[in-house]
């Protein structure tokens, strides 16, 4: 505040009084007239306010942090969100259930297929639809690919925030390979819109399984290189160990989920504790951390990538033949040739496209383990084809609310590392 006053006076006056001598500016409130020369400097007396964002390279999107600093130490940080609020939940009330699928891509845009799968599972729970075996395994493949690409972005951008620039380019190169897979399957690199109520938009193309195996192997090689580069690196450990600690009780009380919760030692993974898509029949482990700091979150997410590769191998090996869509043509569009030749199929097609598929009266909450945490969709239906209420339980939003607690007392550079470790995607935070 004293600095601001000095500047205001300096800019507002010529600097010379009527005798031609320099103007002295009192710095202290208590003794008016005391000048800078006479008064001893009061170090550590003033807090500085720093505004980070909403446009900033290190905030992982449009996040605004107002930081109160005592020198370099963070006294308080107040996150302001909502700069990417797009009205998803309101839009969902004006869409048929299948029309909500493209909306879900754009929330967590780093892991779009996971969002698509969660939507399909929630609506199928609401409607009481049982999907086919092949569809289940393909959705597991989709979820695990999403987990891998999301964690790769997280690793790359966190590395940049902390100062390790190289892994970013390696991660994006690996992501391009998985983007090729996504594009071959769904036609789009990022906004996949993979699922439909009762099935998927398309079956995997030829060569998908061979490419998946090859990309998983190359990914393991790259992850080994990143491990060599970062895990026992003194700078990396020094920047991340002991930073942003969240105890298990705090994490549970603040509704953390995903790696934020598991790094603090709480063994909660929706795939293990509320299994969906037959995850209980797969053989995989969930890494649990110990200290709840940034380093543990890095280790947890790193290991999750390796476990996802393991899951992908199993899913690919057990992929059964058969249809991907439920045989019920009131829910799934009939094949084109049938719709063009058979009257009943044409009526089904017409009703689904024009009126949508009505859900029975009721409500359902369904959650999956998305890469960010527990992603849940809550639907309330009044018997029509458009939901009364579509609520997205956003893991990144809730995880971000812990930022203020975690970063008190740390340095400003640690704040950036902690913010990176929360793994936010603003599309999901703000919806």
């Amino acid at each position, binding site marked *: 505040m004293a600095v601001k006053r000095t500047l205001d006076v300096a800019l507002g*006056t010529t600097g010379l*009084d009527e005798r031609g001598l320099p103007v002295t*500016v009192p710095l202290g409130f208590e003794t008016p007239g005391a000048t800078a020369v006479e008064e001893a400097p009061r170090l550590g007396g003033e807090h500085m306010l720093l505004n980070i964002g909403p446009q900033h390279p290190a905030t992982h999107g449009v996040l605004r942090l107002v930081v109160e600093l005592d020198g370099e130490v963070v006294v308080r940080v*107040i996150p302001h969100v909502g700069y990417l609020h797009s009205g998803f939940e309101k839009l969902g009330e004006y869409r048929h259930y299948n029309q909500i699928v493209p909306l879900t891509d754009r929330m967590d845009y780093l892991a779009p297929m996971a969002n698509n799968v969660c939507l399909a599972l929630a609506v199928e729970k609401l409607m009481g639809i049982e999907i086919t075996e092949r569809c289940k395994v393909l959705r597991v493949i989709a979820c695990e690919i999403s987990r891998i690409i999301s964690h790769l972005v997280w690793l790359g951008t966190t590395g940049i925030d902390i100062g390790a620039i190289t892994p970013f380019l390696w991660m994006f190169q690996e992501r391009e390979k998985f983007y090729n897979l996504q594009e071959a399957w769904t036609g789009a690199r990022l906004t996949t819109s993979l699922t439909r109520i009762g099935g998927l938009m398309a079956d995997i193309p030829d060569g998908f399984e061979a490419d998946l195996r090859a990309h998983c192997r190359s990914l393991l090689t790259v992850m080994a290189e990143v491990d060599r580069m970062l895990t026992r690196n003194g700078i990396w450990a020094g920047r991340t160990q002991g930073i942003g600690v969240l105890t298990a009780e705090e994490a549970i009380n603040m509704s953390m989920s995903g790696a934020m919760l598991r790094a603090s030692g709480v063994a909660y993974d929706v795939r293990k504790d509320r299994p969906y898509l037959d995850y209980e029949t797969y053989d995989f482990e969930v890494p649990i951390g110990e200290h709840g700091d940034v380093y543990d979150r890095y280790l947890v997410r790193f290991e999750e990538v390796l476990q996802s590769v393991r899951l992908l191998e199993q899913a690919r090996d057990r992929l059964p033949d058969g249809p991907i869509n439920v045989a019920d043509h009131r829910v799934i569009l009939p094949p084109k040739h049938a719709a063009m030749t058979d009257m009943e199929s044409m009526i089904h097609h017409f009703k689904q496209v024009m009126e949508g598929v009505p859900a029975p009266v009721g409500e*359902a909450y369904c959650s999956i383990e998305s890469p960010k945490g527990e992603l849940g969709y809550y639907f*309330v239906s009044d018997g029509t084809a458009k939901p009364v209420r579509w609520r997205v*339980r956003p893991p990144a939003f809730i995880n971000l609310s812990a930022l203020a607690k975690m970063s008190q007392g740390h340095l400003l550079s640690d704040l950036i590392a902690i913010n990176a470790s929360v793994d936010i995607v603003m599309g999901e935070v703000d919806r």
Partner: protein
Amino acid sequence: MNPSADALRRQFGPAIRRVTESCGDTIVTIAPGRIREILAWLKDTPDQVYNYLVDVTAVEYRDAELPLEVVYELFSLDRKVGLRVKAALPKDAPLEVDSVVPLWAGADWLEREVYDMFGITFRGHPDLRRILMWETYAEGHPLRKDFPLRGRFSRSEQVRQALNANPEAHYSLEELGIAEGYHDLPPDMRARLARGERGRIPDATGGR
């Protein structure tokens, strides 16, 4: 059906208005005035231990006669069981419930979002202000059913209001410090602040 529903009925009797089941989830509708008490019981009782708050949200139905519902999704990490608790708020009364932030700190931002989107006030919330829309947003509460999809104002008016909103709100130590320490300030300073005076710059001779 989750056995917690029967336990709640035995414990709280008529405060438990209704118990339903939908798609495998158990839903308990309770009296809105007793939210804090019932949720605290669910959190702390040794047999229940719903220590994880999954979500706080609200639902407004298309039928305008139906009340607004505040929905709490709970989960017990130890017993791996979930429960949904709802409180119905009739629309002819002020939309207020008690905040559960003292029970679960995770409810902080979730309740702020419900306030922003629905206009439901949470009594006892430490910092109840808009979170997704900007603070001076004048069009209303977007997720209400009487709020049109494209908003109430014309597009040019929305652009004008957006461009005139201050992007540097909450960016001064005075605002932050004064807001927090308001009750400790001397009364004459509070009076000065109420008049909008934020302190004076000294003149060239050094006097105030």
